[in-house]
């Protein structure tokens, strides 16, 4: 039995030689190392955020304002940032969800031809746009024209980022709605717009909710775009026209202060943010699992 010679390759050894076995073992070891390298950062992040974050959490954290420069010995709270995050993300949802859903309906129900191709390409392009760009553009326009950083501007910047997220997610679930349903309704004489509103969207309902929650998580976790538009504020602010802080901005700001009490605020903000995002994504997951069960 002579070793087979493939074109341009040296003869290969016959049988399961020791070197082949060793290579396979080394490779298996490499795969395990990959698993470890993926899990270690996650564990480190979780442990530090939980340990240092829970240390910072108390009732003051949710009800008080950050300490001023002269009383850094007292740990305050980030109540203003929690309110600010709520305000900015709420307005961004009000703007981007209807627009995003309408765009998705267009793409999945009517979208054929050149316009649809351009719209779909635009949505994908905006998804690939770095978030700082959205902030930069709003800062160079809205913030410059109004001569003020504002929660409005923050919401607008977030809307640019959330709109394509909602569109992409909604389009995907709308496409999963069986074609038979649409055709059945159309055959009964139901007008097209009514089919979309009364049949397609309700059927896709929970899937759309998942997409919206995804967009909210994205908005809550965004920092760069908000830094250039809403700036931040160490006082309580409920006016949309004024500079406003968010949880992410507070983490960014306080993390870089030398005082340990202020850094503690950053860790508290991190655990608040992570818990919120986690609850949102678990809810989204439960909703979509229920939906799959119902469809099955």
């Amino acid at each position, binding site marked *: 039995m002579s070793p087979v010679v493939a074109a341009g390759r040296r003869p290969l050894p016959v049988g399961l030689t020791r070197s082949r076995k060793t290579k396979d073992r080394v490779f298996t070891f490499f795969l395990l190392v990959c698993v470890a390298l993926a899990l270690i950062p996650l564990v480190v*992040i979780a442990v530090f955020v939980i340990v240092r974050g829970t240390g910072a959490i108390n009732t003051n954290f949710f009800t008080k304002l950050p300490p001023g420069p002269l009383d850094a010995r007292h740990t305050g709270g980030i109540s203003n940032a929690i309110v600010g995050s709520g305000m900015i993300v709420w307005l961004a949802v009000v703007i981007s969800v209807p627009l995003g859903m309408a765009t998705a309906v267009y793409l999945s129900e*009517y979208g054929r031809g050149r316009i649809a191709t351009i719209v779909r390409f635009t949505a994908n392009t905006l998804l690939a746009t770095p978030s700082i760009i959205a902030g930069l553009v709003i*800062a160079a326009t809205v913030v410059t024209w109004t001569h003020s950083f504002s929660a409005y501007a923050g919401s607008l910047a977030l809307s640019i980022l959330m709109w394509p997220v909602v569109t992409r997610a909604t389009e995907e679930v709308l496409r999963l709605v069986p074609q038979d349903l649409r055709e059945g309704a159309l055959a009964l004489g139901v007008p097209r717009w009514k089919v979309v509103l009364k049949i397609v969207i309700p059927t896709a309902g929970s899937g759309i909710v998942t997409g919206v929650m995804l967009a909210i998580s994205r908005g809550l976790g965004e920092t760069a775009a908000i830094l250039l538009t809403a700036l931040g504020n160490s006082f309580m602010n409920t006016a949309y026209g004024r500079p406003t802080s968010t949880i992410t901005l507070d983490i960014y700001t306080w993390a870089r202060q030398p005082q340990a009490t202020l850094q503690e605020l950053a860790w508290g903000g*991190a655990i608040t943010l*992570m818990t919120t995002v986690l609850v949102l994504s678990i809810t989204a997951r439960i909703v979509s699992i229920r939906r799959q069960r119902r469809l099955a």
Partner: protein
Amino acid sequence: MVGVTVTTGILLVGVLGVVLAVLATGGASTFSKFGLGFLTSTRWDPPHQEFGALPFVFGTLVTSFVALALSVPVAVGLAVLLNEPISMRITGPLATFIDVLAAIPSVVFGLVGLFVIAPWLEQHVEPVLHTVVGWIPVVGSLFPVLARNEQGRIVGAGGDYFVAGVVLAIMILPIVTALSREVVATVPRELREGAKALGATRYEMVRLAVLPYSAQGIAGAAFLGLGRALGETIAVSMVIGGGSSLGASLFAPGQSIASAIASQFNGATNPLQRSSLLALGVILVALSFGLAALSKWFVGRGMRRMDVSSADPVDPGPTQQVTAEAA
């Protein structure tokens, strides 16, 4: 209904148009004043009205490539493992854990990067890297010896290009893994099973059947990760150290394009500096759109190649090599 929805579609296109127009008109005075010199000048000096983008472009590229070099091998390993049928009980939770990593907001990566990862890398990893590769000519100068204080502790700058690269590597790992996993999943089953049946070990199956088939798709995944890394702002600006000069090594503090925009735009009062920051935005957008397109092209090509070659009997592809190896 058509009218309303198509209007929103066109509005979305308008938004992208406005974004590009604002960047282009805003950056115009910088481009007309410095021309291409804006890209090649290393001097970013606002008080003297001198603006060159090179330090930031360098920072962006160097951190992104460190991130890519560290995360792609791990992502490919995970993609291979997640497609192995041996261990469903492991792969399910593993995929979930990686998804969770993707859901962490970037400012939290920045926070943990600043307080945990940066000090650890500066004290323990960078000196080791210097000892291991610092002696090599040319390449070694990227890994210089680090300054120590009287107690023998290394004086860290609170971040540098290398730290930013490592943090970015962690951040892009989920997306690169997810796409590589999809690509590896498209390798025809007959090929994997054929290799196994011919007596190939798992390594040989991956090396000779899986990787040659998914190489282009994996390149696409890498470009997607690179695009993400280029645009990442907050986490990078927290761990890259800062400063406006061109760092001479991986262990030097610097700025990336995105972190320079984030840290300077709010305080930029003179028009030329604002214009230069918008011009940096133009460069960033061009880089990230270019990479997104490149990624799509590679993934698409990889997929198409698979269809063609599995149907083509005379293709001198990986099948023959597997036969040879196992014979």
